[in-house]
């Protein structure tokens, strides 16, 4: 699913002393099938942006188009939007509540008018997508799993609706390295099979490795937008604005300062290693 923001602004509590401009004149396009990362400091407008895209809030100005359709337009199918756009909020595992995994994952499907068979096959597929064996987990309590597993169960609950756009807000927070790796690999596969992914994260290293591009917000405006190699190349500008770059880029910068000829766009670990090995041999 493609996403287009046209000059979108969002103001909280307009006309009151608490008036806050969360997002200002934001324009950008996410192509169908892309894996886009969203970064920026706390309060930069990331959460507002994803809520606007998911149609959970209306903008104060501008338009939001999904597959070319204005989601706040008169004839737009808002019910369809809820199915086609899945949102995984922060710490989604706290929302697990049903008695069995199967019931929990199927919960969001109740009002889609699907048959039992359709629901079951969708739940099965969602659980398998998240690395579970359907038969092994379907009758277990969702609360008896480990933290990383619960996170993946919660994502399965969103995937069961077969969304075309999956939005994730800090999906890695609190996960250990193995849990992160597992979730990221599964998200990568999902993306390869056609789901557009929009992932909000503070983790610049992960976004540099996995995302096709990085949308960097600052004070509610678009600050940088492009592949990680481009966005993180401008090291000084990011530092001056208090934005953290990935560790790989930090290491590359340290070596560049020492006169090593390493490209400013070195953002992935494999790249860094190749660059160091190449220079060392010389």
């Amino acid at each position, binding site marked *: 699913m493609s996403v287009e923001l046209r000059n979108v602004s969002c103001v909280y509590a307009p006309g009151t002393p608490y008036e806050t401009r969360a997002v200002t004149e934001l324009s950008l396009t996410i192509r169908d099938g892309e894996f886009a990362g969203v970064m920026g400091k706390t309060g930069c407008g990331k959460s507002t942006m994803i809520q606007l895209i998911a149609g959970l809030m209306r903008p104060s100005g501008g338009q939001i188009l999904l597959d070319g359709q204005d989601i706040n337009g008169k004839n737009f199918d808002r019910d369809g939007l809820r199915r086609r756009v899945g949102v995984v909020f922060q710490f989604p595992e706290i929302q697990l509540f049903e008695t069995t995994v199967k019931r929990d994952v199927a919960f969001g499907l109740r009002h889609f008018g699907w048959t039992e068979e359709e629901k079951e096959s969708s739940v099965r597929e969602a659980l398998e997508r998240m690395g579970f064996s359907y038969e092994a987990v379907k009758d277990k309590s969702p609360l008896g799993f480990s933290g990383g597993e619960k996170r993946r169960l919660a994502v399965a609950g969103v995937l069961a609706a077969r969304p075309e756009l999956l939005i994730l807000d800090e999906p890695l927070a609190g996960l*250990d390295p193995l*849990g992160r790796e597992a979730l990221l690999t599964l998200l990568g596969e999902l993306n390869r099979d056609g789901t557009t992914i929009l992932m909000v994260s503070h983790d610049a290293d992960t976004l540099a490795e996995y995302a096709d591009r990085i949308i960097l917000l600052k004070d509610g405006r678009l600050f940088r937008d492009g592949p990680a190699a481009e966005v993180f190349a401008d090291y000084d500008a990011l530092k001056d604005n208090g934005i953290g770059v990935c*560790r790989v880029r930090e*290491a590359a910068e340290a070596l560049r300062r020492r006169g*090593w000829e390493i490209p400013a766009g070195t953002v992935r670990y494999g790249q860094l290693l190749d660059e160091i090995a190449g220079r060392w041999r010389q």
Partner: protein
Amino acid sequence: MKEAVQAKHLVHTYSPAGNGRRSLDDFSLTVMGGEFLAILGHNGCGKTTLARHLNALLAVQQGELTVACLDARNSANVWKIRQRAGMVFQNPDNQFVSSVIGEDLAFGPRNFGVPEQEIPRRIQQALETVGMSGYEKRSTHLLSGGQKQRIAIAGVLAAEPDILIFDEVTSMLDPEGRRDVLGTIGRLHARGRTVILISHDIEEAVGADRVALIHDGRLLAVGTPREMFTDADLMRRTGLTPPLPVRVYNDLRERGITLPFCPLTMEELEEALCR
């Protein structure tokens, strides 16, 4: 210096009736007073269960535990232990009891029966320590994530504990907030407090005096960050990714390049490569 924490053969299970999994299994560890100890391990390894014992939020089921030389098995010590060992949690928003910062900070000391005239001094001192003097009358919900977490730390400091336990306190913060909070933790350690830092981020543990690796409720190994992070076998067994400089060192060696020493920090990496 005295032991701040001494755990001997601790066992804990959350379902004592059945044959539940042991969250702590014959766990023994000593933390010295004034030490900065980092605890690492995967989700569900028992880190948080251990932290809750140190604050007497969980009662000792089996084994021995002393915190600040107080026997945790003696229920008369529960309040004293909570006063001596303060705990800061992951989500700053879940730790506020009042929307006014000064009121929030007064909550701990008031509960511990600190005289009312003493409390303003404690609040001021706690705010000064976390670098937020003058915020007494401000509101908690208007703070950034890093500031909130520093106020949560100040709330614990107001009770004047000797031991501070941080349970994944940076995982919800942006890089700037994280730097803020880690800086505060470092300062507290420099001023003589015992710091126990539980984290998933191995880079945060690089500055610790010692690192304890927990696996399936047991203490797998404990030693300096260098000893722990450069031991490839240990890292694999605990499912941890070593810090970037160590990874570079290991992977270069596999390509036939051996650096003069194994770097732990970015500065050391620079030195190892440029020497």
